[in-house]
């Protein structure tokens, strides 16, 4: 028997295109895909300015920029004038699946960070993609048939017979200088998939998309960007809080490790009078916590434990708190530090900066929930005060270390009322030597009896 001979070998771990396409598009909503493309357009504005060494107005950096979204049963298209993709970036990074480690660093305020948005959106919607991008000097086109691309494995064997993956998209009409094409990027997707056609055709989808852009892009729209959906301009829906001499929202700002945290909490509308199950209360869909990362709303109107609701000492959400709005903003030039998930539709609550903000968020929530409890004794007067305070957009709230709320005036006395069997009350009256007097007298005397013996000194 001879000794076995050990050698080494390699197991093929190359990815398959079909796997990527399925993985990327699973569990992502069509609206999120569209927002990913919108994020790219927003980022393009800042990147172009940096390339060209231009300063953007810090308050309204996106002013003069528009993004046009159009869709119907036949196509989807997005067009911007946000600076375009330089050819070198297109060749080396823009179409990679995920950001390579050697990619240039992400820049100030970037919101697209995982390098999958554009591919994901394309693969989700349809089979044929036409894209054109121009920086004003350079330009290129991309024509892709996803199905044809998927069938072509794009691998070759090296000298030892091992598979080497060489995935690429074909860039055409590449012009490295002196292009005549206007600055910007346009993407058009046709041969839409069945489920996508139905959504693009449904008025409910359009309404949902409009609302989500209005809300999740509120801060970006308020900084100058214009977005058109099938020709209709989107109007930002910014969280508001009431502020005047009686009311002042809480506002707290801190900066740590390159992340600026800003927490604002206030009352957007008077809490409802009737919170019983049958009461017709205004839609509570806009109230709760908002989490915003680099101006992008990633969580809206949250009423869950993620933002502290139901985590002691904060009570769980209840319609009594309708009117509550809290906004937690995280801004950083290093977007990977921010508490957002890849879909940008959820907060990464284990993030250290988020954990740092949460106790402050909860303290402020508690303060307002306490107020809605206390105000019940004085609701009529306070509602008038609440209504008199004008709502102002959250971005214009000034820094206040303390939340200012009117103090409910409570009466000195309360009414106690309860029901007991007649025989028992009569027996108690007899024991108190009060036979023939009113039951309320019996109630008062029994309370006084208890109070004298067990409470007062």
């Amino acid at each position, binding site marked *: 028997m001879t000794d076995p001979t050990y050698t080494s070998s390699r197991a093929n771990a190359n990815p398959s295109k079909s796997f990527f396409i399925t993985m990327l598009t699973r569990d992502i909503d069509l609206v999120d895909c569209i927002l990913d493309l919108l994020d790219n357009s927003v980022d393009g504005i800042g990147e172009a300015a940096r390339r060209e060494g231009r300063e953007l107005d810090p308050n309204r950096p996106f002013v003069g920029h528009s993004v046009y979204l159009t869709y119907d049963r036949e196509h989807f298209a997005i067009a911007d004038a946000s600076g375009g993709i330089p050819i070198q970036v297109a060749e080396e990074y823009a179409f990679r699946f995920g950001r390579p480690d050697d990619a240039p660093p992400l820049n100030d305020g970037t919101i697209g960070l995982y390098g999958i948005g554009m591919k994901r959106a394309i693969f989700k919607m349809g089979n044929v993609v036409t894209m054109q991008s121009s920086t004003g000097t350079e330009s290129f086109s991309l024509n892709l048939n996803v199905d044809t691309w998927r069938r072509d494995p794009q691998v070759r064997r090296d000298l030892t017979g091992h598979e080497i993956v060489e995935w690429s998209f074909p860039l055409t009409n590449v012009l490295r200088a002196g292009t005549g094409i206007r600055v910007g990027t346009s993407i058009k997707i046709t041969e839409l998939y069945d489920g996508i056609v*139905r959504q693009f*055709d*449904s008025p*409910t989808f359009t*309404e949902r998309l409009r609302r989500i852009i209005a809300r999740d892009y509120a801060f970006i729209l308020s900084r100058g960007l214009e977005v058109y959906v099938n020709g*209709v301009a989107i109007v930002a829906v910014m969280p508001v809080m009431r502020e005047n001499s009686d009311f002042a929202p809480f506002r707290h700002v801190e900066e740590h490790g390159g992340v600026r945290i800003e927490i604002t909490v206030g009352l957007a509308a008077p809490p409802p009078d009737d919170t019983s199950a049958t009461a017709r209360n205004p839609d509570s869909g806009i109230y709760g916590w908002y989490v915003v990362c680099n101006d992008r709303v990633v969580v809206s109107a949250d009423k869950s434990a993620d933002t502290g609701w139901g985590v002691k000492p904060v009570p769980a959400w209840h319609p009594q708190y309708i009117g509550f709005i809290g906004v937690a903003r995280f801004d950083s030039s290093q977007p990977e530090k921010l508490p957002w998930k890849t879909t940008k539709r959820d907060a990464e609550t284990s993030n250290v900066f988020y954990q740092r903000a949460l106790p402050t968020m909860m303290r402020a929530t508690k303060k307002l929930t306490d107020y809605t409890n206390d105000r019940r004794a004085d609701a009529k007067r306070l509602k008038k005060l609440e209504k008199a305070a004008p709502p102002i957009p959250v971005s214009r709230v000034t820094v206040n270390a303390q939340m200012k709320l009117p103090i409910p005036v409570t009466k000195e006395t309360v009414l106690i009322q309860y029901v007991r069997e007649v025989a028992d009350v009569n027996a108690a009256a007899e024991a108190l030597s009060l036979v023939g007097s009113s039951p309320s007298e019996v109630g008062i005397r029994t309370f006084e009896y208890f109070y004298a013996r067990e409470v007062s000194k």
Partner: protein
Amino acid sequence: MLRPNKNVERKLILKTLRALQSQFDVPKYRYVGFGSMWFSDFVLMHKTFGTSDLVTIESQKSRAKRVEFNKPFACIAVRMEEAATALGDVLDEKPSIVWLDYDGPLKNATSGDVETAVGGMSSGSILLVTVNAVVDQLKNKKVNDEEISPVDYLAEICDDTGLIAQRNRLTRNDFPQLVAEILHRRIKSAVLDRKQDCEYVPIWTYRYADDADMITVGGMIADATDKAKFDASGAATLSFATGSTLFDIELPVLTEKEKRALDKLLPSDSPLNLASLEFELRPSEVAAYQSFYLEYPVFNEMAA
């Protein structure tokens, strides 16, 4: 009250259904409506097609005995429930014709009945919705104790912020058309969102006024097979089945004597000569009558 326009509307819808009968087994459909005390649509369905699977929905419990007493045929089942509840139960994927004939404003149709109905309907089924389309229904409305503008109120009840851009259509004459669009869009949304493989095929868009301006829209929920059958039936070629294009029914209220005088001149290939009549009518009224003289109801037993 004499309601010749409503009466003619019913008959035009029945005529369309008759065209569909070449491809669809309309007599076997389930008919669901709000029969009230009069059951006019139920009587027509039973008499025209022999439809015997009929369900009336009545939400006012205080009228239970009257509804039972007035129902004209034994085969009408009475559901004393809110439409939202009854529709969820009554429609069990059997091909059906559902007519949500609200007396009241648009708000009735935007509270979920359309979606519930569509959710329970199968391909080949037909949904009709009638509402009051007088623009005043948007005025002096309050939401959460605060006065709200007509356009905001409309966006609120329809849950559609896109309608805010339509504020210049909130006039007496333009609002009915907008209501029709809203209703068609709502049904289409419900079909696309809830019925895999089905599309909404609009068939009717009627405006009529016996008293207040009313709008009736309707269409078929159809998969590819039923859409092809629909096209083959020729229903869409009928002059009064205009899809989502507004079709006005504007008949005058005539006395029996006037009706007979006009009938004596019909049919006629050319427009009737107004001057030859012994009484005055507007040209549009005469033209409307000429189009629908066969459907025009005989009200003699009620006119007294």
